[in-house]
């Protein structure tokens, strides 16, 4: 069997191999350290992720034609590649943010779990088979359940982990039932064989819609699509903040990658139906997320609801079911990942000093540290979709996709929602810039935090001004699905 393994096949899973090796190295380092508190596991992870990212970009690029590899389990195409880069980059920044986070950051298992989850995501982005997809989703989720509850002496963190596990298990079960139906209809588990299999066996539309809804329960949970968003605020609030950043960026991106691939590959026979379902889901998601965000006092909950709303904006582009739509989602996720990580970085730096996640404790941030306040300003304005920041381009592209697909009503719902979003982002900025500071202690980021902030803020600006290269990159990714 091994004789049939080619170089192509190995290069396609280069990131996964590297991540697995990295996990082993961190594991051994942790053993050698024997319980001593050392930053070594963190730095090994950071260095390893950096190398993996570079190696992936250098060697694991797909060819012009998508390839089905490993017995049809994985598809090596540009969409998968771009998402792998997003996941690795996001994991890298999150690890940088973890350095110095409370008293847990030196624990080796934290990084091993993070790497395992990242590996699951890279597989999710490339899965071309229901079985592979299910395994990838579980590989992603199970470490995240543990990470959400990682602060064992904090009841909120315990609650977060447990809640995430319970809801995750139930929704995954329902999704798996949907998978089994698809297999029954099509006689194959390969995503790219399902469409023709379903067409051949003549499954009636309502039955297919039923299967669609079951599958969507699982994906909707991952991307926090309403009405499956309810877990997000509690889990985001209770989890360690770097993990919250990871959940709201990489994990969400992975869900969207899978969602787009499965919808476009497996459900072409009921495209109008799934477009409608996603469109309604998108409208609900952004409206619910934004409206509830209005009344939040805790910055992590606010960002959680805002992240629900942003899932709605990206679903708006998914609903377009077009190349421009997929491209917009990719651009959206590029922007959103760096913006959200920048925002969480500010939250981490501030709460390290104030010991609280209340919005009121951001008071006077501008007088205490003007540069940090500027980072908050730029990241929040990008979330609000204001030029010259990346969020503006992402917003315009997503709305364009909707308008192009004739979903004018959805675009109007979207732009009105963006106003609601602007309101609560401005409220936080008002507190940071206008209110009088509550304390004297210096708020300053550590070096890794400062590096994360600088990198992500610069990227937010670049994504907003130099559009063409990113756009073309995202376009090649979208080409992988059409």
């Amino acid at each position, binding site marked *: 069997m091994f004789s049939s393994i080619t170089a192509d096949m190995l290069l396609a899973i280069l990131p996964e191999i590297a991540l697995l090796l990295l996990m082993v190295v961190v594991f051994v380092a942790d053993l050698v350290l024997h319980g001593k508190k050392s930053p070594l596991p963190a730095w090994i992870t950071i260095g390893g992720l950096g190398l993996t990212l570079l190696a992936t970009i250098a060697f694991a690029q797909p060819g012009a034609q998508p390839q089905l590899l490993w017995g049809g389990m994985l598809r090596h195409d540009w969409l998968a590649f771009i998402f792998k880069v997003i996941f690795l980059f996001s994991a890298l920044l999150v690890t940088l943010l973890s350095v110095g986070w409370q008293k847990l950051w030196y624990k080796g298992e934290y990084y091993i779990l993070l790497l395992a989850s990242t590996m699951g995501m890279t597989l999710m982005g490339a899965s071309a088979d229901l079985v592979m997809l299910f395994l990838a989703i579980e590989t992603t989720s199970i470490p995240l359940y543990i990470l959400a509850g990682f602060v064992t002496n904090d009841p909120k963190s315990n609650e977060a982990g447990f809640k995430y596990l319970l809801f995750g298990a139930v929704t995954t079960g329902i999704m798996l039932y949907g998978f089994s139906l698809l297999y029954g209809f099509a006689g194959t588990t390969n995503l790219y064989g399902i469409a023709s299999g379903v067409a051949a066996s003549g499954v009636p539309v309502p039955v297919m819609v039923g299967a669609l809804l079951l599958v969507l329960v699982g994906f909707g949970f991952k991307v926090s699509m309403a009405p499956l968003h309810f877990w997000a605020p509690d889990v985001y609030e209770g989890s360690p903040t770097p993990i919250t950043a990871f959940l709201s960026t990489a994990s969400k991106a992975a869900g969207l990658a899978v969602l787009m691939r499965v919808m476009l590959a497996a459900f072409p026979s009921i495209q109008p139906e799934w477009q409608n379902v996603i469109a309604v889901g998108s409208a609900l998601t952004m409206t619910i997320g934004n409206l509830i965000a209005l009344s939040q006092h805790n910055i992590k909950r606010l960002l959680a609801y805002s992240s629900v709303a942003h899932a709605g904006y990206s679903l708006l582009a998914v609903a377009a079911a077009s190349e421009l739509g997929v491209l917009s989602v990719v651009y959206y996720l590029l922007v959103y990942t760096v913006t959200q990580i920048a925002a969480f970085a500010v939250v981490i730096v501030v709460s390290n000093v104030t010991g609280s996640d209340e919005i009121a404790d951001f008071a006077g941030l*501008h007088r205490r540290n*003007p540069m940090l306040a*500027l980072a908050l300003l730029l990241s929040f*304005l990008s979330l609000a979709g*204001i*030029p*010259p920041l990346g969020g*503006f381009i992402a917003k*315009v592209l997503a*709305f*364009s996709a909707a*308008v*192009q697909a004739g979903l*004018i009503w959805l*675009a*109007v719902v979207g*732009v*009105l929602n*963006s*106003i609601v979003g*602007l*309101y609560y982002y*401005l409220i936080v*900025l*008002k507190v940071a*810039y*206008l209110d009088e500071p509550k304390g004297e202690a210096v708020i300053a980021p550590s070096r890794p935090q400062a590096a994360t902030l600088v990198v992500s803020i610069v990227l937010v600006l670049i994504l907003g001004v130099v*559009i*063409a290269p990113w*756009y*073309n990159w995202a*376009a090649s990714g979208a080409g992988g699905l059409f």
Partner: protein
Amino acid sequence: MQIPYLLSAIVLLPILAGAVMLFLPPKNRDLIYRFALGAAFVTFLLTLAVYFGFDAAGPQYQFIEDYAWLPALGISFKLGVDGISAPLVLLTGVVIFTGVIISQRIEDRVREFFAFLFILASGVFGVFVALDMFALFFFYEIAVFPMYLLIAMWGWKQTREYAAMKLTLYLFVGSVIALVGALAMYFASGLNTFDMTLLATANFSPAFQNLWFPFVFFGFAVLGGIFPFHNWSPVGHVAAPTAVSMFHAGVLMKLGAFAALRVGIMLLPIGAQTHMWWIILLTLVNVVYGAFIAMTQTDFKYMIGYSSVSHMGLVAMGFATLDYNGLVGASVQMVSHGVMTALFFAVVGMIYDQAHTREIPKLGGLMKIMPFAGVGFIIGGLVSMGMPGFSGFIAEFPIFMGLWAANYPWIAIISVVSIAVTAAYILRAVGQVFFGELPADLEGHMHDVKPSEKLAIGILCFIMIAIGIYPNVIMPMVQHGVNAVLALLGGA
């Protein structure tokens, strides 16, 4: 001779200056102020070069620059000015320069104040010179959001948070609604370009134009203060610090009117012709209602704020006539009103800084103490009343001519009433504030304005008088621009 990269320099210089300022040492006020003044002066010189370099016999758009931005979607960084936008570019240059001059008294967080002001200026320049619809939206939103911080952080404590939020939300609702309309145009044209000079030739179907024109027109006209979406504006004027009020009333409101013309009327001319009869009624409300409300105000800034609503109504009314004279008058009115309001707010700011009150009845006799400011205010007042010999007359007279020509005689007659009302409140304010007795509690607290502030007042007055006695300094240029607009409307 044309200076290369002139327009991109004008657009990018302020925002880069603003970015640099954010990294200057915050304690060194003098350095920051000098840097801001220098950047504003250079910008002002560049805008002068645009204005006087514009050839009123040349092609419609001049100083064109075109750089690929996102070729896949037909987005380019395409800049150019026509006869309507060239004077507005100069206006912005004047207001940023005079605005920085009179902002010497800012004490709190000086570098952020000037940085945000300059970012705002870049946005404004960008909208005036953008020939690409995407670039226009890009800069439009850059022009709006710094207002929030400028008003909320340095504004009048009692209303600033409310005013800043109200203004921002109003303007963004308008902008995103217009954005949906713009995207609809982009896809309907099938040209795969955001270049407005090409979209103007797209021949959208009448049904399409009639549907989308109100979205695009009102989306932008919100910023022009059109009734019933005007009430963010006086509140915002009052709460804003002086330089920001100058910018806001003097330039930002023109941004709305200008974008409504450029994207609404010029790209959807049939839609404009269908809808204008009722829009002109709304502008009539602006003109008359604004003037009456202004008359009932005792707060100096509210009075000017509502007078702006009234005068900007005249701009929208001129556009709405879709007539040659109406359009010319409206275009000149944008400049005339911009300069005049900037002057008003500058003088009111100078008075408030010393008297700490803006209540008109509590002031008096200031002519003896600050004669230069008083004369400046009176000149502004004469412009506001549309007195011959000043720019207001050159602007308003053609608007009324346009109303007659477009068969709206009753509208013309009713709106002329507003001029009488304007005269009433302006003269009352002048009489109360600058003449009469100085109230006892202000005795000894008031001093003459600084020489630099006199310079600012002088520049603004000079422009209004120059246009008034020698209209040719602006007319050929504006007529050149309007002719091109009329060609799109199927006339001329």
